[in-house]
């Protein structure tokens, strides 16, 4: 009996390890998120981003650091490439890629760069097409 019990315990442990280390879309300690900016609190310098191209979209609260740049990454307008923007110019509904990392105490996710994306850019189209085909962004292959 003990033998069977230990086998079950070990199996459950191995299974839980597998689940714990599997990647099912974006995670709290990711250092980049891709999605739509759904809410902007300009006073607190906090944005909410709902991820795209994942099986289950998630919403993350991202705290903009003083040095957080807002920059046009891809655009239909060549003269706008790389243009820096102010927070007051950032709009809800913008497709963006945000880079940063969680603070070590786990309290906040610290945004260091907001890159504005062109929805028609090839990378966006690629991620969309992959997701439609069942290859979701951030999932373990």
């Amino acid at each position, binding site marked *: 009996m003990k033998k069977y019990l230990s086998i079950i315990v070990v199996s459950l442990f191995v299974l839980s390890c597998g689940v714990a280390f599997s990647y099912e879309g974006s995670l709290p300690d*990711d250092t980049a998120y*891709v999605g739509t900016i759904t809410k902007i609190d300009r006073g607190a310098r906090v944005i909410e981003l709902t991820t795209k191209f994942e099986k289950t979209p998630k919403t993350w609260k991202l705290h903009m650091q003083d040095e957080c740049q807002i*920059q046009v990454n891809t655009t239909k307008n060549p003269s706008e490439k790389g243009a820096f923007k102010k*927070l007051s110019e950032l709009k809800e509904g913008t497709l963006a890629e945000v880079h940063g990392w*969680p*603070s070590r105490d786990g309290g906040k996710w610290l945004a260091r*760069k907001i890159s504005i994306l062109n929805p028609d*850019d090839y990378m966006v189209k690629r991620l969309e097409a992959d997701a439609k085909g069942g290859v979701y*962004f951030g999932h373990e292959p």
Partner: protein
Amino acid sequence: MNKKGFLALIFAVFFVAGIAEARKTEITPADERDWQVIAPQDSDAPLRDYAMLYEAGGHDGNIGVIGIPSMRVYRYIMCGVDMHNFPFSGSNAGNNNGTPDGKFLWVSDKGADAVIEVNLQTGFAERILANPKPFGIHHSAAMSPNGKYIFLTGELTGKVAKMRVSDGATTVIDVPPAPSAPDYPDTSKDGKYLFAGNYYHSATMVFSQDPFKFIKEIPVGKNPHGHNAEPRGRWVVVCDKLSATQSVIDVRQLKVHKVIPVGAGPLHNQPDTFGKYNYISSFVSDSTSKVDLGRMQMVDEFPIHYRVGHNSIAPDNHYYVSQNKYSTGLFNPTGIVYAVNFEEQDIDELSPTYGKTVKLIPINGEPHEGRQIFSTTIQRWNTGRGEEMFTKGYELGDVKVSFDDRGVPGRSLTKRPSLYPVHLANAKRYFIPRDDGKPGVTKEGDVYVVRLKGFSYGYVPRFFHVPKGANVRIIYTNIDKAAGLTKNPDVTMGFLPAGYYGQRTRLDGVRGMSAVGEFVADKAGEFEFYCQQFCGPLHLEMRGTFFVDPPGGTASLSVGDYDEMSKLEYQVLDPEEREFITGGNRLLNTLREGNEPAI
């Protein structure tokens, strides 16, 4: 036809002619041009490049600045002896390009064994961060998240350092077991780890950033080289140089998650900003391997014209630059040291030229790290803003970037240098007909003559000794018949001792002649020498050691004039410029570990 009809006809003719004329003068936007058209277009001048490629030029001692997508060389910034790798200042958020604030880059000088700070806004070298000695730096490509520390790999002595860029204070770790060859590094974006290859161990070393300590080695493919943390922080991609594979390390579990077959001779990575694709320079297969990190497999491969080393990617993921090595026969000859080349490839999957080479240009030196930055980050000085820029800085949207670094050694608001570090200024070098003398050290009069042979991939003799104070003449002969795996037989072999003698002893060995360098061995120590001319897949492993023995003793990594050499005073000619040199053995192991968070 009545009068009205005739007038209407004339009007119509003029209208059509007007449209045709207007179309003639229409300027094709820079991003929509077919870059394969060699002839210049009317709209080429003035040309706006949306990004700038900064490249560490290797033995030309420069940082090159090249426009993307035009691939026009804008200028060279003089830095030192043998420039290898750099991060941009700012934060390390994002892919290899990071999130530059436009102030500085910190480039490793493998020849001088130092780090040079380049001010991107003035476009000049501004400070010299002296490594502790002995160190034998190769790379400085990794930066802590907060931008206050850089991590250096001492490939030539088996050491790794954490350096505070404000003053050059360091903590240095010896990587066990010896011999170790700490190679290309990158940091996890969240400030936890530093990863670096170790080609003697065929492993990836893992360090904690803060406190700075060695954690473990992860076995990967044979002789790993490029290591990069992709933007999402899940994977570290490793180029297994001699295994033709990519090892993908799971950052959470610190073990290899998957091994992906890629083009032969993978050297360097360029993950895009999403961490979706990783572009690999594959040296032996002459190609760019495109790996989908979502599918964990190679999904495409683009041929390139010549053997590649480093690579770089545009900040918007639209262009990839393959920084190639051999170019003999491709461009006009320019002398013994020929031009290498950069090849720009279109990686926009929706572009009609996707996967194709769109520009190929000759380039000086033997370039290493390349990183691209949006050109909007570099400000214009020629608009009367000089004083404002000098004292207040500039703005990137809401972000204020200040040059007011009061209290930082070597930086002030009243004096901003434009250093021109010594680069072979006192070197005595010349060529002679091929010398076929027996390799080794002989004494001819009062001169110690060292006959040194270079081949793919090694030196004979591998070690040699001269006494301190000796007049030394090195006769360096390239004895290669052909370069083995490479398709190009004319491979130049290099000789460059890292550190003090790197300033006066760099030699380039072409077949059929011998290169001679003369110097006085006035500083004792153990000096690792290496090949600074990319000569093939095992070029990096082509190393030797020469010893300048102190009176009555034998030089080693612990016996030599290291404290004196670490001051790097010989790096500048004007004594007043020594105030812009900081770091060295004086600040060795002075970081307050645990109290200086890297995040």
